């Protein structure tokens, strides 16, 4: 086991653990935001740079600091390492810089984006970003692309996290999904517009942290916060059949995999990842198709209610206060009904 501290909080983890995984064990605000890392996908992480942390002491043996911020998702812990995330104003500033850069070419079209409300970029910008943009030029634009009749690609919103590329590589067989062009002209491609014709292709939607890959069968049907998520299952010959239904009344508007508090698809009992097949995702849209288990547990990344926004604002105020040096980790009171997806009526 390896001992280290993150924001002065001691933690002990097995050798080979990354700083990010160690921080997730601690949980709460010391956990760096991760836009590209995905623990269920091999070789993910390292791209977005939102998870950067400052390593104040490399290890007990070699106490020198690491001169540059490191990507916590790709950096292994070492005995006696001293890591600073939210207790380093310099690190928060660097992260704010990354967030600002992630947004310069983003269309900021949340009002017409199906991902709004469960978008990691929204959360990230809200919690770490600046209030105003300093970018005044035209934003890069691509035409939306239909990847088959079920998946929509809005390249304008893509943050190049490569998660979908890794899903195509690792979950589906026969890869026809990749990246073409370079720099800020780079785009996710399906060589080209060829539907990723595979039973598991729909999982690219679940891993996409933003609204770049969305479910065409759910398109403009509702805002996620007007739906009620319930966990349900069915006997499926292709996948685990354990899903989350996003309902309005008796109507199933959307089916997704179940996600954990980090926004990642959960594990099955046997430790495999509970990816779901396209039949379950796109074709089983009747409540009769499913055995409903009960309401899903909602975390802050799934549904953003108006109340939730308020508390996040407090978190930000806290973070700013913290620039004075005080670590913060107080429990956040979400308010009565904040997690009730139907609480729009109570506003």
């Amino acid at each position, binding site marked *: 086991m390896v001992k280290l501290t993150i924001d002065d909080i001691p933690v002990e983890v097995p050798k080979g653990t990354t700083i990010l995984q160690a921080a997730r064990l601690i949980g709460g605000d010391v956990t760096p935001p991760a836009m590209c890392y995905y623990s269920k996908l091999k070789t993910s*992480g*390292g*791209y*977005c*740079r*939102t998870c*950067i942390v400052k390593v104040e002491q490399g290890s007990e043996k070699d106490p020198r600091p690491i*001169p*540059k*911020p490191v*990507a916590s998702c*790709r950096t292994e812990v070492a005995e006696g390492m001293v890591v600073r995330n939210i207790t380093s104003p310099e690190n928060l500033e*660097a992260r704010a*810089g*990354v967030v*600002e*850069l*992630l947004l*310069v*070419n983003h269309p900021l079209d949340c009002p017409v984006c199906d991902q709004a409300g469960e978008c990691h970029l929204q959360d990230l910008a809200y919690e770490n970003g600046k209030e105003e943009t*300093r*970018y005044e*030029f035209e934003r890069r634009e691509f035409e939306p692309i239909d990847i088959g009749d079920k998946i929509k690609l809005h390249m304008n919103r893509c*943050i*190049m996290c*490569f998660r979908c590329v890794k899903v195509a590589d690792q979950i589906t067989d026969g890869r026809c999904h*990749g*990246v073409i*062009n*370079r*720099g*800020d*002209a*780079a785009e996710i491609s399906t060589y080209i517009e060829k539907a990723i014709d595979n039973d598991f292709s729909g999982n690219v939607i679940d891993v996409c942290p933003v609204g770049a890959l969305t479910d065409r069968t759910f398109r403009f049907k509702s805002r996620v916060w007007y739906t009620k998520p319930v966990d349900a299952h069915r006997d499926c010959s292709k996948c685990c059949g354990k899903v989350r239904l996003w309902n309005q009344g008796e109507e199933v508007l959307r089916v997704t995999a179940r996600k954990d508090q980090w926004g990642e698809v959960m594990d099955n009992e046997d430790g495999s990842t509970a990816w779901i097949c396209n039949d379950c995702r796109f074709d089983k849209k009747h409540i009769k198709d499913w055995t409903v288990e009960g309401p899903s547990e909602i975390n802050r990344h799934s549904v953003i209610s108006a109340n939730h926004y308020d508390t996040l604002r407090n978190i930000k105020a806290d973070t700013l206060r913290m620039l004075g040096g005080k670590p913060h980790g107080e429990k956040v009171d979400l308010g009565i009904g904040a997690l009730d997806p139907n609480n729009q009526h109570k506003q």
Partner: protein
Amino acid sequence: MSRKLLLKNDHIPGIAALKTYKENGGYTAMEKALKTMSPEALLEEVKTSGLRGRGGAGFPTGMKWSFLAKPEGVPRYLVVNADESEPGTFKDRYLMERIPHLLIEGMVISSFSLGANSAYIYVRGEYFYVSRILEQAIEEAYASGLLGKNILGTGYDLDIYVQIGAGAYICGEETALLESLEGKRGNPRIKPPFPAIAGLYGCPTVVNNVETIAAIVPIIEMGGAEYAKIGIGRSTGTKLISASGHINKPGVYEIEMGLPVEEFIYSEEYCGGIKGGRKMKAVVAGGSSVPILPTELILKTAAGEPRLMSYESLGDGGFITGTMLGSGGFIVMDEDTSIVKNLYTFSRFYHHESCGQCSPCREGTGWMEKILHKILEGKGTLKDIDLLWDIQSKIEGKTICPLGEAAAWPVAAAIRHFRPEFEAYVTNPESIKDVKHYYRLNPTV
């Protein structure tokens, strides 16, 4: 006349051909190495020589070689980086074009020391004609038993392959190069693992610059200790400098490390002074990514010492008053040059060459280019100058590969040393109308 090691036979007609090369002492170092020395002894010579990588970073070559993992039953590779795409750098091209056998000889010695039986030369796409020269030289070497199976009857086997890139600067970054060599998209890998542990096809690999590998030949010829006596301090040996810009004699020069910068620029042996007798304004000493320095700081350090052509002297003062030897791309600018336009050209390049993997470089390089374009159009504000400064600081150190830094450093240095010029552009665009347009202004790509 200073000492020449790499280009000493450059004046000999036909030196590109094996016969002439051999007649002038070629392949004797290789014979000595393969027949009389062990791989370990060769490594020791390289370490003793103090040779540092000539591709830009100046990492000690002997140390790099000693990091190479040597697991049983796993092949090891030597990969020569001939991607040479840093603006202002053209010395590897010169060397390969003129004396291709020097590189091949260096590769055989190096591969033997590293225990590699396959070696690659990754040539930038635009150098396709150079690849033909190399191919021809390699063919000659095979035909004479200098490559292939049982070289010179020593039992050592080596095959050399030439691979042409498709014209991307990023493929000069060693891990992007390896990806490209494997036939994939040339994206830099996330390190660790480093190539010495898992490089080409996941096997231990050493990536070295063309000039680095060529320098192995004189090192083995004269011995590491003798080589270390040439040069100054920890900058041993000679260095090829690609000199360009407003000088009377642009070209590739071999200098002994430690040559005063002033002598290099003004002596007839080298650059021959500034064109048209004009005054010098600034120098980018090591390829477009290293910090630009104004005349007073390139000729003398902040402490008033004469600046020398060496890693240490050019680096004196850090980035506040110093720069880097880098790849030796020495770009001289005269008094009429617009630093802002020059910076725009550089920034446009880095924007165009970003691979797009990581957010700060992908988004930041384009933003900086756009702001510079706006300033050049006379629409900039003082705030834009601060914004540029801020963006470069948000890129530097936060990216996967050093291209981010390469894009950030020129911006920082130009503003640091020439801020009044930027201010003139935004406060009084009329005043700079008659500055000569050395760089044509292209609309943003």
